[in-house]
């Protein structure tokens, strides 16, 4: 069983998507470690270390995602989590922006996969299976 850490980063309290992602991933047989809303980078990193997770799925809905995710990849590498897959989704920037350029920005920040607003979680499921070789 694959272990994935999910949570909502920063000062973000959007809980609905997070609860639904947990439900769907569990149904699909993942071991889901949900650290919930208002989670810091450290919370994600600690959870991933403690549970030996293969992937970290960061949600950011409220618009500050770009700031909250700064150096997350670097910090994960430093914590020995360089191999862990790193996804981000939600409404990760402020405002309606061209998604291609948003994706580029986050990929440069070290994210393996970047999802546009309202992404159906089933899509990420396929990617996850592909990336984790399930």
């Amino acid at each position, binding site marked *: 069983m694959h272990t994935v850490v999910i949570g909502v980063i*920063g*000062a*973000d*309290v*959007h*809980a*609905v998507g997070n*609860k*639904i992602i947990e*439900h769907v991933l569990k149904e699909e047989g993942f071991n889901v470690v949900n650290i*919930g*809303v*208002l989670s810091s980078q450290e919370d994600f990193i600690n959870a991933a270390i403690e549970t030996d997770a293969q992937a970290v799925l960061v949600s950011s809905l*409220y*618009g*500050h995602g*770009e*700031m909250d995710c700064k150096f997350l990849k670097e910090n994960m590498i430093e914590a020995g989590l360089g191999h862990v897959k790193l996804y981000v989704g939600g*409404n990760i*920037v*402020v*405002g*309606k*922006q061209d998604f291609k350029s948003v994706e580029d920005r986050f990929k440069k920040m070290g994210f393996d996969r970047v999802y546009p*607003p*309202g992404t159906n979680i089933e899509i990420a499921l396929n990617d996850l299976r592909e990336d984790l070789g399930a």
Partner: protein
Amino acid sequence: MLKNKKLSREEFFEIREKIRTHWHTGSDERLDFDKAVETLRNVPDSKNFAKKLRYAKENGITMIQPRAGVALVDEHIILMKFLQNQGGADFLPSTIDSYTRQNRYSNAEDAIKESEKQKRSLLNGFPAVNHGVEGCTKVFESVKVPLQARHGTPDARLLSEIIHASGWTSNEGGGISYNIPYAKNISLEDTLRYWQYCDRLVGIYAEEGIEINREPFGPLTGTLVPPSISHTVAIIEAILAAEQGVKNITVGYGQCGNITQDVAALQTLDALTNYYLKLFGYEDVFVTTVLHQWMGGFPADEAKSMALISLGATVATLGGATKIITKSPHESQGVPTKEANAEGLRASKLITNLLATQRYPSDKVLKAEKEMIEKEVKTLLYATLNVGKGDFVQGVIKAFEQGILDIPFAPSEMNKGHILPARDKRGNIRILEFGNLPFDDEIKKFHKNALEERAKSENRDVSFQMTIDDVYAISRGKLVGNFSKKEPLNEN
């Protein structure tokens, strides 16, 4: 032990001194009480939120207000004036950013600097505390209509001081409604205490003859909240505010999607708030209502979003709401541009104008819906009062502990999160799992029957999958989440 009791002036002013030290802008001398009173006395009627609401209600007008806020003062002023002039906003907001909401003023400071550098707002709102009375007054002086702070701040004491001292005559929030949907592990005791302060501030201004409006945040998580639950919270927060001396209160409600349920909710919200305020001894409170256009996930498509916005304005006007909080066609994507925001306003304004003299007809179904809401609210309210041994503050704390009050999809650990909502066949929001809600069998049966009727028509069981489907439904263009049905002659 915190109680629902008016703070004395002494207590209040003692706390006030401390609050002002939370960030350097608190030391601004325009926050000295006498100066602030003078500022507020000079607010013309046309820019007084409370008075304009009074005018609207007395004339049966439904007014409109957007959400909006950006990092920098000058940009924010441009935004406000645009929404006022190009959007026709009757009231202006200043939506506060999420760092400020969590009192992370130094995070906000960084983001302000970064926004100045990048020449675009990196904040999702206006950091009013960082800009202080200086910045907030500049905003106030730039606009023609009343201003309100809209946020989601558990501890908004310094924020509230700053905005009111800048001439902003309304403040959104409450000890429950700005905790349960907006925090993870802040105790209710803390937020109720913080909001007693914010209310008392308004009450003390009232003692000086200055009318300021307070608005509990009605929609809570915005996600399939049954009307009776949000009503109960709104009514309790109105009572708590009234106790602190607030005289002008707007109770709110988030559009559900079934027009009859929405109208029933708006009508009962007004009636019940007035009723219970009087019942508990608060005689001279002026109550208005606000409908929030659909607060859950929006469709990605802008045309569909405009339709949803228009439908929200339609139920608000037909239901006699005093105010509408509007959405924009960018809702599903991100903080709207000022243009998109104004589109939502203008669409709403057309509807409030066209339907100005029209009201929703009353029939048996509407009456039954209203009766059910009344009964549920009564049950929840009395159960809360009961566990609080006659005190609403203690009641609220215990009621949430025990799941007597329970809000679906809330992030707060103070909330049981045991109840599950789902829609019935006609799109009314009903309750699928009651958790510890103290409802009697008649009420429970009513909800169960409604959901079973739907389940039957969809040929499936009543289950959590229904709730999930309903969370997605409107964003996928339906009201009742049922995505399996194939329609032979109706592919489009």
